[in-house]
């Protein structure tokens, strides 16, 4: 009876958004007469940071301070269409839609500014601090606020833009059945160290080490937050969570947080994370998105680490102490049988 240490590795290629395309999201951007901008979305921020990331993307594309952009995700009855917050698609799909909408709104804003300054719109640039000026002549300047007032009350223009991002449905090659499942992939590798108690079947996760390549990290702190929380969830799926009954049928299944187990703050381990940024060709500012993939590698890596520690290959989740003990007993029998043979 002893505790055995083991190390497992898993790598993943994660397709961003729904496989095979046909996966649109829309955004609308408009200014009010004081030069503040609203992004209208139906996309939902579950806490992952959708509002922060789309706000950054809009402000950067418009060339205005981030404080002047408000993201409204209020209501899917009244907002532009979105497929939803899943499949790690938010930053990539919604971000691209916001970028397109902000680009169109910026075009109107620059035309309105050009009319006020009596110059060509192509000669203007934004300073990112709330003003628009003639390239090379910063004194020939007008504030975004004054442009918005002029557009609204004198020129009769709405400073607004529409954006949609849609990966078209993939064609099927009639000969081979080949399709194009995704346009954009994120990648990860995770190493997990565990300790397995062969008397109790308990698995303790000792350390996680991860590398994630997810395009440009538009908001690095939010990316880190996703990766830390997601790996906890991966560990929870690998070792704890199940809606299945213990014995013998569904009436004996977990009914509440007393019985539906998840790792607590005392069960977490140190996690070293490296984020690699290789901008995606079709991502907003090169972004892909962490999303679901942050939970994915932990499950196979933990299963591999257990195999490495005690030599049993468990392919049913979660890997409970009972399953570990049953697998160890099974292996003991086969070892004993082969010796007897």
């Amino acid at each position, binding site marked *: 009876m002893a505790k055995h240490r083991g190390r497992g590795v898993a790598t993943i290629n994660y397709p961003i958004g729904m496989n095979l395309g046909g996966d649109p999201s829309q955004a609308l951007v408009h200014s009010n007469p004081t030069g503040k901008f609203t992004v209208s979305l139906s996309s939902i921020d*579950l*806490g*992952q*940071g959708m509002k922060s990331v789309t706000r950054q993307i809009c402000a950067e594309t418009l060339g205005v301070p981030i404080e002047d952009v408000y993201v409204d995700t209020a209501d899917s009855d009244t907002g532009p269409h979105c497929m939803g917050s899943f499949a790690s698609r938010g930053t990539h799909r919604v971000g691209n839609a916001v970028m397109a909408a902000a680009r169109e709104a910026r075009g109107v804003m620059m035309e309105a500014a050009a009319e006020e300054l009596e110059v060509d719109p192509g000669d203007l640039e934004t300073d990112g601090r709330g003003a628009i000026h003639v390239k090379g002549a910063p004194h020939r300047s007008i504030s975004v606020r004054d442009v918005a007032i002029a557009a609204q009350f004198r020129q009769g223009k709405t400073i607004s833009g529409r954006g949609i991002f849609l990966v078209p449905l993939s064609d099927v090659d009639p000969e081979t059945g080949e399709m194009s499942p995704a346009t954009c992939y994120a990648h990860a590798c995770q190493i997990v160290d565990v300790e397995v108690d062969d008397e109790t079947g308990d698995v303790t996760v000792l350390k996680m080490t991860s590398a994630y390549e997810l395009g440009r990290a538009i908001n690095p*702190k*939010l990316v*880190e*937050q996703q990766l*830390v*929380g*997601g*790996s*906890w*969830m991966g560990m929870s799926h690998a070792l704890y969570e199940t809606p299945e009954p213990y014995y013998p049928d569904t009436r004996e299944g977990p009914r*509440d*947080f*007393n019985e539906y187990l*998840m790792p*607590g*703050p*005392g069960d*977490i381990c140190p*996690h070293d994370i490296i984020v690699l940024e290789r901008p995606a060709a079709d991502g907003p500012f090169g972004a892909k998105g962490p999303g679901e993939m942050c939970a994915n590698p932990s499950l196979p890596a933990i299963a591999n680490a257990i195999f490495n520690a005690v030599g049993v290959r468990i392919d049913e989740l979660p890997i409970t102490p009972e399953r570990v003990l049953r697998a160890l007993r099974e292996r003991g029998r086969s070892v004993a049988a082969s010796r007897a043979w």
Partner: protein
Amino acid sequence: MKTPIQLRLNGEEVAAFADDGANLLDVLRESFGDLTVKGGCWQGTCGTCTVLVGGNPRLSCVTLAESCSGNSVETVAGLRRGADLHPLQSAFMEHFAAQCGYCTPGMLMAAKALLDRNPNPTREDVVDAICGNICRCTGYEPIIAAILDAARKGARRSA
């Protein structure tokens, strides 16, 4: 029947009549309008409804309101002083210790109970203090880091 409940809620004397057997969570939200207190499981297992009664962390969903009458109750609504956030609130923001935010009120109050009685906690003390609070998003590490940071900054201020 209604029962009179009198509390010192975040430093203010408040009173109301509540249903017999009402739990503290419902009385705080419905009688006293303190919506910073959240109900999660209503059976004392998730911790998000944690408030301080007489300075001790209590699961308000399974605490008889009547049993708190005459006592002091602290909730997240009483954490900030005017425009100034409590050091724990600032630390939670700096460490990105909230995602969906549902566990945050309970985490903050469990952490406050800890720091009020132990201003220099170890990591183990922090884990122990929040082990009754479930978080589905953060993986706990940012929350632990935030509480330890708030303790460090609080200790510096009083030194």
